[in-house]
């Protein structure tokens, strides 16, 4: 997954120059097209104007040459149009467009000169049209070319005027336009040429200088947008880094993402993270992006013999502008072979001291700017936090694991003797060791009863300890059909319901769907066995317990409703706490560990579900369990899973 969207990457990677050139290029390409479009109108305009002059104004012009010029303009414009399409199609280099533009201007110059000649030469009102052309050329070309064309215009007009003045070229006026011809009026001709030349040059100067300034602005804009883009990419990288640091506690994953993100965001060849080993003397690469194995195998990076490492580990950001001449570099030859010319290194550290080095590598010398230094420092700070977090997490996980193991071991050690005590008591109360007086039997039964309670407590503790350990995924969840599980549980309580005179109702609204959820069969059984058992326990005779299964909003919903003693309002918030028992529950049932609901909630949470309670004291309680439905390709499997023999070891 790349951080940088395709387009941005392209813009950034080849460097700033390309982006700038491509903008000017794009402008030239579009100008060539624009000129061709305008020329269709110009050509047609010449034809129309000639016709208008002849037929509406009834003036006498050299109409056939003028028509010919108009048609010629259209004809060569067609050639240009086709040529441009060809260039576009071939994605021709910019020089081809440049040549095309020059040809266009040159031919236009000729055409307008002829137009001027055939409409009266120095007397022609068409002369003013030359200024449009000068403006266009000045916009399109660099100043030198623009002035060249302007001078050409002056030469062409002056040549025409002089040739006519000296009678070398016949005068071709628009008959009826002027009372008396001016083309041989020396004062008029020289004044006209002087003003035309100066106006043309001033126009060229003004337009080119405006254009220069516009170009400079444009460059600024490109620069600015580039630096914005870079900033965006870096912000994204930082943001991504922060999210990585927050979301992943696997160190290797954090490191790999950091180096890749950093290299991509800075647009450089490579990036590495090296951490100090146990001895604190050697730096080992833990994450590498963009470097060859050969380079990594170049040799050990010992703090002792690596001046750069020492400087960075002391907390400095070190920029090596050129590895070839730097005294800091331990392996300059290897770096050169790898194609690395500059390096930027930032320290990774925590409160206790240096941890390692984050380093970026570039193929160009002098690649890293102060901006880059600040950026790498920010990434390194995040990396340091990531290391800190991951190490803390590892420590907590290990602690939790050993705690669970300890609890499990202890409870197991507790369970064995209690179980033996119960066995022995049973042989006595069962009369297998001789007869007992009623009182003796009563005492032994009381002892057995207490031992039984103790065992229940130990079992619950064992469950909790096991539950916490299972968070690491010891038991693999599988699709379990809720309907089958619930039917079993309800059947299990049917006898005690009859004995206690409680109406036990099972309402299945699953519509022939087994309602598979992802969990362990034991887990599901414990959850609902516990909830139904509670409902039965705390519901007085002649009451009612209802178990209901339904799909609600795409989730499995099981409600266990009773008409029992209910939960007092102030007990509600403690209901799922370990060892908590509501006072009215204690009153009704003296024994109980207060762990049942804690375990139930723990199991449900681990299955991605939740449990809620509604209750009114002396009216009843309603426990609602919501579990995510397992989306399986074959619902059949989920239904059958319940009937398969249990695996020997789950």
């Amino acid at each position: 997954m790349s951080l940088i969207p395709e387009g941005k990457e392209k813009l950034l990677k080849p460097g700033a120059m390309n982006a700038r050139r491509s903008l000017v290029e794009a402008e030239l390409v579009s100008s060539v097209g624009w000129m061709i479009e305008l020329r269709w109108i110009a050509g047609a305009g010449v034809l129309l104007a000639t016709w208008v002059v002849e037929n509406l104004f009834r003036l006498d012009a050299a109409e056939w040459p003028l028509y010919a010029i108009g048609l010629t303009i259209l004809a060569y414009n067609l050639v240009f149009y086709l040529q441009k399409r060809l260039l576009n199609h071939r994605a021709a280099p910019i020089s081809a467009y440049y040549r095309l533009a020059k040809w266009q201007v040159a031919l236009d110059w000729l055409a307008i000169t002829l137009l001027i000649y055939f409409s009266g030469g120095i007397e022609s009102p068409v002369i003013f049209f030359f200024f449009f052309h000068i403006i266009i050329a000045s916009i399109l070309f660099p100043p030198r070319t623009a002035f060249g064309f302007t001078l050409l215009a002056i030469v062409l007009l002056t040549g025409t005027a002089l040739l006519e003045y000296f009678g070398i070229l016949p005068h071709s006026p628009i008959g009826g336009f002027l009372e008396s011809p001016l083309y041989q009026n020396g004062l008029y001709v020289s004044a006209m040429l002087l003003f035309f030349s100066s106006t043309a040059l001033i126009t060229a100067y003004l337009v080119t200088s405006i254009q220069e300034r516009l170009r400079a602005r444009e460059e600024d804009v490109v620069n600015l947008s580039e630096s914005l883009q870079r900033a965006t990419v870096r912000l994204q990288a930082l943001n991504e880094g922060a999210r990585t640091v927050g979301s992943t506690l696997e160190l290797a994953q954090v490191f790999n993402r950091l180096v890749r993100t950093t290299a991509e965001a800075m647009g450089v060849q490579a990036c590495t993270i090296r951490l100090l080993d146990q001895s604190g003397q050697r730096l080992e690469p833990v994450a590498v992006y963009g470097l060859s194995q050969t380079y990594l195998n170049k040799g050990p990076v010992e703090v002792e013999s690596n001046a750069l490492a020492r400087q960075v580990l002391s907390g400095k950001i070190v920029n090596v502008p050129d590895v070839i001449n730097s005294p800091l570099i331990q392996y300059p030859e290897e770096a050169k072979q790898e194609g690395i010319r500059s390096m930027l290194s930032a320290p990774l550290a925590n409160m206790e001291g240096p941890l390692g080095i984050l380093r970026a590598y570039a193929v160009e010398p002098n690649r890293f700017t102060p901006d880059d230094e600040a950026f790498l420092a920010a990434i390194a700070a995040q990396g340091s936090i990531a290391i800190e977090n991951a190490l803390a997490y590892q420590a907590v996980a290990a602690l939790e694991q050993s705690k669970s193991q300890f609890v499990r071991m202890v409870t197991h050690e507790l369970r064995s003797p209690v179980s033996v005590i119960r066995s022995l008591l049973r042989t006595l109360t069962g009369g297998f060791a001789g007869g007992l007086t009623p009182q003796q039997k009563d005492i032994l039964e009381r002892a057995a009863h207490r031992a039984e309670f103790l065992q229940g407590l130990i079992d619950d503790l064992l469950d909790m300890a096991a539950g916490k350990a299972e968070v690491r995924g010891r038991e693999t969840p599988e699709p379990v059909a809720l309907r089958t599980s619930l039917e079993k549980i309800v059947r299990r309580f049917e006898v005690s319901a009859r004995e206690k005179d409680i109406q036990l109702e099972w309402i299945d609204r699953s519509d022939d769907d087994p309602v598979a959820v992802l969990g362990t069969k034991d887990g599901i059984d414990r959850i609902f066995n516990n909830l139904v058992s509670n409902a039965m326990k705390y519901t007085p005779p002649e009451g009612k317990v209802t178990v209901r299964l339904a799909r609600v909003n795409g989730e499995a919903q099981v409600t266990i409703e009773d008409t029992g003693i209910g939960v007092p309002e102030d007990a509600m918030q403690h209901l799922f706490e370990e060892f908590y028992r509501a006072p009215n529950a204690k009153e009704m049932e003296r024994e109980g560990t207060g762990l049942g609901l804690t375990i139930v909630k723990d199991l449900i949470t681990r299955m991605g579900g939740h449990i809620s309670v509604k209750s009114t004291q002396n009216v009843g309680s309603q426990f609602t369990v919501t579990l995510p439905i397992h989306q399986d390709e074959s619902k059949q499997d989920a239904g059958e899973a319940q009937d398969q023999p249990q695996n020997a070891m789950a």
Partner: protein
Amino acid sequence: MTNKKILIIDDDPDQRLSLRLPLESAGFSVHEAANSAQGLVAVKQGIPDLIILDVMMDTATAGFQVALDLHSADPTSNYKEFRKTPIIMLTAIHSTTPLRFAPDDDYLPVEVFFEKPVDPDVLLAKIRELLG
């Protein structure tokens, strides 16, 4: 029913006692072994009609090894004449702990699994059923 020999393999003497009393009062002849090795020797010597086997002894799964040895399908097994001797396995391992076991022909060839403590009446009923 009488004179049927039952071997109890369990490292806990109290547990053995609690099993022995009901079995003897039901008329069985009871032999005891305190670990796997003793158990296997006793099997060879006493040729019991039924074995009650604890899972956790020297190791957490020592009982399983005994059951696998006794019921091995391997025709060269040292204990091939005991392949049909029914085994009742006792476990103190609570059902929802990660180490959970249930009879499985492929994995563990035992007839019955009982979680401790075992109700003597249930145990006796099962034994009578197994011994026909």
